[in-house]
């Protein structure tokens, strides 16, 4: 191990050790805490969480949410993929953004969201 210039002056060396300790300790603490919090929040629920390094560890073959719209002529399932800018990710709750979007259609009376975790909810559009 070779010391850099900071080793020449004990005070500079001490100051460097403190700064490096803060950066290293801070980075590691965040990197350990973020996935841990996400995993605790997930618990035994089926939906994976973002920032939790869950590679190939969920069993949701279909998207975690599905949408059904009700019009005057009845109810039908909606393929929301054309509205999205990528594949439907299971970590994401799309309902808060998609329900208002689906309600923009004046023919839609209500939107029913079926979520693997929170169950089925119906939102009236008008």
């Amino acid at each position, binding site marked *: *191990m*070779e*010391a*850099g210039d*900071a*080793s020449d002056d004990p005070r500079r*060396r*001490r100051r*460097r*050790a403190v700064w*490096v*300790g803060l*950066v*290293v300790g801070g*980075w*590691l603490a965040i*990197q*350990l805490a973020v*996935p841990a919090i996400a*995993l605790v929040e997930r618990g035994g629920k089926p939906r994976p969480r*973002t*920032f*939790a*390094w*869950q*590679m*190939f*560890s*969920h*069993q949701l*073959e279909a998207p975690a949410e599905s949408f059904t719209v009700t019009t005057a002529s009845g109810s039908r399932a909606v393929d929301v993929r054309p*509205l*999205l*800018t*990528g594949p439907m*990710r299971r*970590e*994401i709750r*799309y309902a808060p*953004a*998609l329900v208002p*979007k689906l309600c923009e259609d004046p023919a839609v009376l209500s939107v029913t969201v079926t979520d693997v975790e929170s169950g089925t909810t119906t939102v009236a559009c008008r």
Partner: protein
Amino acid sequence: MIAAWERLASATVGGRPLAATRVLYAIGALWLLRTDHRRFATGFDPDRLHLDWPLVGGHLRGLPPTLVEGAWVIGALLLIVGIVPRVGAAAVTLSAFAFYAVDRQHYGNGGYFIVLIGMLLVLADSGASATPWGPDRRRASWWPAFLLASQLTIVYLYAGVQKFRHSSLTGDTIAWQLHGPLVDRIGWSHLPVALNLLGGIAELFCAIALWFALTRKLAVVVGVILHVGILCFLRWSPDMAAFAFASWSLYPAFWAASGPLAEELARWRAARSPADPAPEPVRRSATA
């Protein structure tokens, strides 16, 4: 303990491992850009549906996609050639951050990993050696290499531990993702259980074994097989190959990170047994 940390905080290492990290990372970043390229036009389009991240909101919408992609490419090229690599890492990190932060729909573990490693490469002197095979222009600080190596250990530990959840052990998390001619040829009903278990063991093994000289080369082989196996057996997702390159890019960092730690361990052991003198500080080669 404080004296040991002071020595580590001022320790330097050879530049070749970090140069290898830099080059492999840049390849991974370019691969990721290639897979995400077609999403850039819609990704920043203010007229499309966006799912905002907290704090970021809609502030990044409307950024010119070509500007973001251009910065990404130039940054990766700077990393590959080793000219102002910190600027290159910053360019890749900022452009990748812009793409992933503009919309939650863009999130992927590979992209997140690329952003994190990029941030650490801004801190690291990955240009201390022009190429992975040398020669060294100068010595590089040890602690960024330590953070790079630690980051991979954290990722592998979390990924590995989750392979031991009940739903994973039954193979349910792998079964629906099996894909490709290899799977058809093997046709073994317990393949999902076996792959999940092997994957989890491999990730936990690599997380630990990469730190020790005795097991490091074996861990590299296991890690390469792990990621190639994922690509061969499982349903393709855009950032899987980029994630593999990002992971592999961190393997060389263990060569740089472990040397000073081993010296401190030897010094500590020597201090505990007065018969053995403490080791003299030595100029450690890049492959220590």
